[in-house]
């Protein structure tokens, strides 16, 4: 469906960018994104997805401020609908903000990969955020966390940076619009230490979760 006049005005600053065509915007408006987790960066991610014109955002998991977030997204952009829950959904993109680098995260990654869905994982620990777009053969979230010099217990202290929210939204928006150039490496954004760089991660020897992820279980 062609863009309406008010949509052309609303998205004017992104439609004017090189390669960001009307067709790319229409792709965004038709897309469905499933978001796991909670917290301020997740909220900010949802708002940036909504602002860019993602059509439907499904929030999986219980969070106390969900109604406020749904209201804020709708008030920002009525083109976007934010829904509570994502059971039975066939999304176009999965973003996982759950503070979990254990078997649960590996299972969600394996499930998304098995279904052929893009899966973007964000972990926050000690003022840093790690973001990775998962692919077949990649190490498990626990091994990526380890590559950043962080432990599972560091996830209990995420720190106050919210950089990962818009960063995840940027990656997902570009990929959904067909403009993304996915990187294999994880991205480390350590606002506390002022370190922003790519992070090469390899599976730890005999990591059970990596093996499960490789098997797609």
């Amino acid at each position, binding site marked *: 469906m062609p863009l309406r006049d008010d949509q052309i005005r609303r998205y004017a*600053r992104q439609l004017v960018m*090189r390669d960001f065509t009307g067709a790319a915007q229409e792709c965004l408006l038709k897309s469905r994104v499933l978001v796991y987790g909670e917290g301020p960066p997740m909220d900010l991610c949802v708002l*940036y997805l909504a602002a860019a014109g993602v059509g439907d955002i499904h929030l999986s998991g219980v969070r106390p401020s969900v109604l406020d977030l749904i209201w804020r997204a709708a*008030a920002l952009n009525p083109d976007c609908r934010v829904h509570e829950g994502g059971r039975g959904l066939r999304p176009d993109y999965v973003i996982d903000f759950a503070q979990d680098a254990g078997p649960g995260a590996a299972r969600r990654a394996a499930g998304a990969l098995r279904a052929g869905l893009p899966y973007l994982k964000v972990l926050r620990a000690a003022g840093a955020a790690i973001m990775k777009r998962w692919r077949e053969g990649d190490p498990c979230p626990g091994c990526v966390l380890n590559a950043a010099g962080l432990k599972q217990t560091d996830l209990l202290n995420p720190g*106050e940076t919210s950089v990962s929210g818009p960063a995840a939204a940027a*990656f997902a928006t*570009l990929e959904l619009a067909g403009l993304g150039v996915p990187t294999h490496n994880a991205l480390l954004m350590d*606002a506390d230490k002022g370190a922003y760089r790519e992070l090469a991660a390899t599976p730890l020897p005999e990591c059970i979760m990596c093996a499960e992820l490789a098997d797609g279980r």
Partner: protein
Amino acid sequence: MAAFDPKEFAVPRERARVLVAGAGGLGSPALAALASSGVGVIGVADSDVVDLSNLHRQVIHVTAGVGLPKTASAEEFLKRSGFGGAVLTFQTRLDTGNIMEVVSEFDVVVDACDTFRSKFMLNDACVLAGRPFVHAGVLQFEGQIMTIYPERTACLRCLFESPPPPGSVPTCQEAGVLGAAAGVLGAIQAAEALKVLDGKKTTLSDRVVAFDARHMSFRTVPVSRDPGCPVCGTKPRIDSMEDANYPPEACD
């Protein structure tokens, strides 16, 4: 240049006063992050009103607020977000006549302006007033950020002596911007402002971090003070705010 202790610019969060100059693409994520930071006072300066074309990136504003001053919309956002401190709004264009007075009221300044003229004016005012500030700029899929301690670390004019000639660089209106790219830079600006207030040594001073959303990559470039800098060098030619130092933008 001698090393300095960033603790000399530290201020306890509850007493800290932060100015966000610009409530647009960079200011929105900065304000969203500062709202829950426990700072005492947030100042918001912007002369514009909310436009529909702002809303793909300026996530603190709402569609029903189109036509409202951005300062009022930002204040409403801060209240709705549960910000417990005071909000000071400056619904005026910062210019050579008022910028020193405004900047001097704050402990740290976030440069969330959208024109080179404003950015250089803010740089000079902060250096002359002795206020640390966090510069950032964003266009299309890319942007950069640097934290500046006046007369301690490299300022914007140490890198670029003067704004680019009018019309030589496209504006956001002409070239566009990915909303979430501005979001990344603005969120980093807030984190930097808080590190300045906390007296941390890990700020992005004397280095520029460049972000490229298209490739999801960051690049860090070390920089240093220029003894010939026109505002913070050994023989500065800019010692007060004069209009002649800030040529009008092509779209002014």
